[in-house]
């Protein structure tokens, strides 16, 4: 009898059993040590984050016993000792100054990144990259001091001019002549602090735009700007968005520089040139010293809200940055 030609022939005799083995990869001692220590370090990082979350949750429990979570999220006042406190205005002002900072930083960060990666002379490129990264490491207290003593008195003139000339724009309206400590000033200092971070992320992504595509655009008779628009910017879109989100994360959590510049208010106002601003982190820094146990618990609750928002922003940012090729909707 001949061997069956088709495997699925029902009349065929079953094939002889084959020896199946499972290949076990044995790690060397060095591999095992490295594997374990890498896993331990990774787990520790995650564990720390969970611990911080747990700590904040635990510390804010006391306050949530006297005020409900939903009231805390909407209440604009901050009188925790009378069980009347919430992040209603705090969160609004935190987001307002952070977005102001991000909006002002965006054009400068993009231009800086494009200059360093595309236009700067090759021999300057390395030192400019280093400088950009160094700028990101300037302590925030320095920005705070500089913002308070140098920027604020000078930027006041710009605020006055804007409010006079563009008073028909609702956000520029100032009626009582109070221009110091405005969200505009705080946002400007934040913008200066986050430009290097955003520019650094963007530059990194721009420099990875494929050389074959760059040459393709130039070989079609494109100018350098044409090449940037058709190749570098579409390729770097993820980096642009991700870099700005990372910068937003930093702006939301920035404490020292903001603490030096705010004059605390608990109202929701979009008049960005008018005195008075606030952020969650600045309030914690300012109030912590004299706070009663219940007020401390309220500050912890505010910290918890900030922690969750910053975490979300950073997760979204890293997701966008790590996604290599983005979308097909880009136009040149």
């Amino acid at each position, binding site marked *: 009898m001949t061997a069956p030609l088709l495997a699925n022939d029902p009349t065929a005799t079953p094939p002889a059993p084959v020896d199946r083995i499972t290949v076990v990869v044995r790690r060397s001692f060095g591999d095992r040590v490295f594997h374990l220590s890498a896993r331990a370090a990774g787990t520790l990082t995650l564990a720390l984050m969970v611990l911080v979350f747990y700590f904040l949750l635990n510390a804010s429990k006391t306050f949530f016993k006297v005020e409900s979570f939903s009231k805390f999220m909407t209440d604009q006042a901050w009188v925790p000792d009378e069980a009347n406190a919430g992040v209603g205005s705090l969160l609004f002002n935190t987001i307002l100054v952070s977005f102001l900072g991000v909006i002002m930083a965006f054009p400068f960060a993009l231009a800086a990144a494009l200059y360093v990666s595309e236009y700067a002379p*090759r021999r300057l490129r390395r030192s400019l990259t280093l400088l950009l990264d160094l700028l990101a490491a300037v302590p925030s207290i320095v920005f705070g001091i500089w913002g308070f003593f140098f920027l604020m008195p000078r930027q006041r003139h710009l605020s006055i001019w804007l409010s006079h000339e563009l008073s028909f724009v609702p956000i520029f309206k100032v009626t009582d002549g109070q221009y110091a400590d405005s969200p505009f000033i705080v946002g400007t200092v934040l913008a200066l602090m986050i430009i290097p971070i955003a520019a650094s992320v963007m530059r990194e992504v721009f420099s990875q735009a*494929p050389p*074959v*595509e760059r*040459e*393709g*655009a*130039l*070989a*079609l*008779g*494109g*100018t350098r700007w*044409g*090449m940037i628009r*058709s*190749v570098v910017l*579409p*390729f770097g879109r993820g980096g642009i968005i991700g870099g700005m989100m990372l910068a937003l994360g930093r702006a939301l959590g920035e404490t020292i520089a903001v603490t030096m510049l705010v004059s605390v208010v608990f109202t929701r106002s979009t008049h960005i040139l008018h005195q008075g601003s606030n952020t969650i982190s600045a309030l914690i820094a300012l109030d912590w010293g004299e706070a009663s146990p219940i007020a401390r618990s309220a500050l912890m609750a505010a910290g918890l809200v900030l922690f969750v928002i910053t975490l979300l922003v950073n997760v979204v940012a890293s997701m966008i940055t790590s996604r290599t*090729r*983005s*979308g*097909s909707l*880009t*136009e*040149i």
Partner: protein
Amino acid sequence: MTAIDTTRPGSDAANKDGPSRLTAHGVHAWFGNHHVLADVNLDMTPLEVTALIGPSGCGKSTFLRLLNRMHELVPSATLAGHIELDEVDIYRGDLSATEVRRRIGMVFQKPNPFPAMSIAQNVLAGAKLGGIKLADRDATVERALTRAGLWNEVKNRLSMNGGALSGGQQQRLCIARALAIQPEVLLMDEPCSALDPTSTRRVEETIGEICSEVTVVIVTHNMQQAFRVSQQCAFFLATEGEPGHIVESGPTEKMFSEPDDQRTLDYVNGRFG
């Protein structure tokens, strides 16, 4: 800005008299202090395909990149000699690098369509980059894709992403993209080295069809391909420590049957390289 009427073939302002003649006189090239190409003289004639052959590292790709000023994009790259497009020096004349590259198109070794653009946008990218006003965009797309032999395969999905095509189709899309701005010369740097035999045949057919309207210069490692597609041929060689140079050039028939130089005969018969 040049307005191109795409309804009549070969009717743009810069291309009135058909394909152009590209000539190289005493061309040298350096990367830093490294002399890679010495005293190259070559006449690339209209209506014919010129193949540049030779072993790796002999400077033929460098020579090709000199022809449309892509060489200067490499830092530290320098050159000497004259390259003339219809008797106008492309380095010393009034022509800008972007104008030279618009009139002398290029297809690369690795297909490089713009991945974020659709097929139609890819074809129109050159016009957009060069600020050229097109009389009829749809007609330009159809004509360029037809000449590149890709129209029938993609006509129903022009809005699809260019990066989603197969390798061979991507390369023909790149040819269509280069042809859409109606260059006078088309340079091809080993256009089939990343392609399968069927795609290679399609690209070779395309070369045969377009050479009536555009002067084609092709670098290839494939002797059979050089023999099939070209009418003129130049053999480049670089000996150890010496810059590359042309050993011999002339009609392809002669180069492959009875060349003047023994080294040419050895190379085209696969005895080295």
